[in-house]
């Protein structure tokens, strides 16, 4: 993975930069000891690492503003960081950058149950948002697998999804407003707790902009009343193609489960060893979850069972009790960790139209054979968001390059069938150079012009999202 050459002038100014920051921030907010900045050298895409010049951990919007103002003045690139769980390298530093982490900003500022929103600081974890409202029967819907650790600020930057967005949508559909600090230190409010405002939807374009337009320090989030109950079922099939066809039939029938998850044999085994959820031994497994009152759940499951029956499933198993339901989800949500037990892997994130599921799975299998690298599949089938996991050995010479090449081929396939490069992990550094597969030069130019408006000097997370060659002039590279 190519990264731009660091600015040597800035590297030479490390002490001065740290001193300027320490002059306005509490002492423990600035880290520049190389032994300590190393903690921040990578995010969840750990194959690529680079320690930053310094790390700043502010506690307030004003401290974020002060940090950005100094970096702006000194021309120092800033890499915003939530909890550092990005799987696309969104929070990966460059050697000449300051990492701005919001992990200490975890406060709940206000809960309004009557108008159904919560106002939080951006470093609060996804699960802790639900934690703040669940005793009143509410929850925050987007649920990325990393929800125990990942920060709302990072969720907003990446427009994170999760398993339940088939019904509830992704972050952008549940985000009402933010406090944003621009690179030059300007603090502004976009959106807010009251419905549709007027004017351009700046909030909509900030969400998912991968920390390139500003640093989100606070957010107003929609909270939803919890349904009376939920129950997952496991449906086992002897082929991925049949499982894919079953998914399409369920959606076509007008049934809207809150989640339809898919796993293939490789993942099923790894997850079962890990979570002991009672996953059957089969080629393809669907986890389908429905919600509502007990009778509603029964009725929906009866309809799903009737549709599944047309596809001759090997098994159709309902969760016996809450404990088993939890284990079923634990297995799924631990899938990446469980696969990690088998070796190093690279996780992809392309989305495809649900109708292409069977075709794409077949093609991925063929590519896997051709490259000689095993690929496991675990993904959100209801919305077509694939997560092929390519297994490899990081210590083997040439394997990483081979994985990158196979990954690129799979993502090209996703775009080719009408899908996209990334469904929920973001572009980061990982898919940056594949962007021209999905977008024309004019499409990318339009996006970069948006960054020109928010961050004219291109100092915020500059080497991400856009192909390096496309953004070179803007980043000040000759």
């Amino acid at each position, binding site marked *: 993975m190519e990264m731009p050459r660091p600015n040597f002038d800035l590297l030479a100014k490390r002490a001065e930069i740290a001193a300027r920051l320490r002059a306005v921030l509490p002492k423990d907010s600035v880290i520049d000891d190389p032994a300590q900045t190393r903690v921040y050298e990578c995010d969840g895409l750990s194959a690529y690492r680079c320690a930053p010049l310094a790390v700043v951990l502010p506690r307030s919007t004003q401290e974020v503003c002060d940090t950005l103002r100094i970096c702006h003045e000194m021309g120092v690139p800033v890499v915003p960081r939530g909890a550092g769980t990005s799987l696309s390298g969104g929070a990966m530093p460059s050697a000449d950058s300051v990492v701005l982490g919001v992990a200490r900003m975890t406060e709940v500022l206000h809960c309004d149950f009557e108008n159904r929103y919560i106002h939080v600081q951006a470093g609060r974890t996804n699960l802790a948002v639900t934690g703040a409202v669940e005793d009143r029967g509410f929850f925050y819907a987007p649920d990325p697998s990393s929800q125990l650790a990942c920060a709302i600020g990072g969720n907003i930057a990446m427009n994170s999804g999760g398993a339940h967005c088939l019904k509830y949508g992704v972050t952008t559909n549940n985000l009402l407003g933010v406090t944003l600090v621009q690179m030059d230190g300007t603090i502004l409010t976009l959106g807010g707790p009251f419905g549709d405002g007027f004017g351009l*939807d700046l909030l909509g374009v900030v969400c998912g902009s991968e920390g390139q337009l500003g640093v989100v320090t606070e957010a107003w989030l929609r909270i939803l*009343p919890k349904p009376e109950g939920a129950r997952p079922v496991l449906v086992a099939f002897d082929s991925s193609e049949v499982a894919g066809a079953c998914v399409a039939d369920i959606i076509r029938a007008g049934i809207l489960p809150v989640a339809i998850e898919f796993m293939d044999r490789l993942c099923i085994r790894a997850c079962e060893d890990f979570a002991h959820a009672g996953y059957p031994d089969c080629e393809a497994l669907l986890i389908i979850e429905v919600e509502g009152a007990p009778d509603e759940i029964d009725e929906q499951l009866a309809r799903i069972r009737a549709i599944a029956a047309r596809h001759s499933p090997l098994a159709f198993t309902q969760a016996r009790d809450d404990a088993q339901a939890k284990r079923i989800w634990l297995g799924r949500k631990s899938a990446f960790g469980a696969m990690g037990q088998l070796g190093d892997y690279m996780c992809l994130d392309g989305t495809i139209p649900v109708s292409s599921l069977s075709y794409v799975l077949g093609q991925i299998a063929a590519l896997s054979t051709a490259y000689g690298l095993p690929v496991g599949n675990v993904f959100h089938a209801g919305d077509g968001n694939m997560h092929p996991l390519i297994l490899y050995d990081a210590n083997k010479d040439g394997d990483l390059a081979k994985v990158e090449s196979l990954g690129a081929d799979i993502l090209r396939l996703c775009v080719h069938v009408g899908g996209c490069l990334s469904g929920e992990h973001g572009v980061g550094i990982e898919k940056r150079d594949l962007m021209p597969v999905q977008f*024309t030069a004019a499409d990318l130019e*339009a996006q970069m012009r948006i960054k*020109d408006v928010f961050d004219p000097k291109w100092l915020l997370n500059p080497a991400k999202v856009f192909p390096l060659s496309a953004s070179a002039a803007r980043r000040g590279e000759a």
Partner: protein
Amino acid sequence: MIRPHSEAEVCEALARANSPLAVIGGGTRAIGDMQGEILDTTGLTGITHYEPAALSLVVRAGTALDEITALLSPQRQRLGFEPPELGALLGRKGRSTIGGVAASNASGPRKVQLGSARDAMLGVRFVDGRGTAIASGGRVMKNVTGYDVVKLMAGSHGTLGVLTEISLKVQSIPEAEATLQLEGLDDTAGLATLRHALGSAYDISGAARQGGRSYIRLEGMAGSVAYRVEKLRQGRDCTLCEGAQSAAIWQGIRDAALLHGRRGDIWRLSILPSDAAVIVAAIVAKTRADLLRDVVYDWAGGLVWLLLAQGADQVVRAHVAGRGAAIKLRGAGAAPFAPQSRDVARLSHGLKAQFDPLGRLPPLHFGPSTEEK
């Protein structure tokens, strides 16, 4: 008037224009006066892609809303965000297009359950003020590849580009719908009931109030609707409307039909639901008794349609300032929008300058407040 029939012709028209064009679809929901030569988008018609099993629809922007309904209905699907038809309310004659819906982010009562038009918009193609065709998003529900320019275009009223194609997520029509109609409550209590219902586990798909009645809509499988109706009713005395009767109520609320054909200014407030009764009462109390002619509350009070006598602009602005947004949709005498904060306006105008540097598209309706300039 220019009436292009393809995206290439839109590019050509914009590249050639030397003064701002008035971009118009059906002409039913434009805000404020449109000036300049008309660019009529109704020649850009047709379904590009429709895949019921993927809940995916891609249409050209000039396609009429009623044509889309006619296409989706036989498959038992629809646009879930329930776009209002504003022609009758605003006294416009045209045939609403999907491009106009997208460009104004027009969303109906079901927003409380499924979100706005912008939430159903998965992708767009548009032509910017330079005459360049640009694509963003796609036709899959989960897509975080690159910036979400789709959201920026939703509700931008043609100021950044002319939409040529829109990709949407559609909804399967539930098998049953029912509406609980509650009477005998004042606005304060009637709106509180709606907020309470939205905070329940019963998946409300409509919460509105007009003419002294509160309405709560439930949709889904027949057994489930019946169950939730009983849970919400809690032994209260209320009327139950089902099927077509229920649908008719919500079509009326969606289009603010109560206010059709009546004289006065039409205002649309976007505020916190719990502020609705207070703000409306304050507007009435501070002015002439005959000021308020009628009101429709949707989204449990988060959206308020007001029919007011002329001359209420200052009062409305004063009571909504800092608590949401007020737009005057019909009536003379004032800019339809209140000014924006300086920094938000600076970014908006910055985007406008990038997408339309030569001013060939309609101007932004809003600017920084004059004292901040």
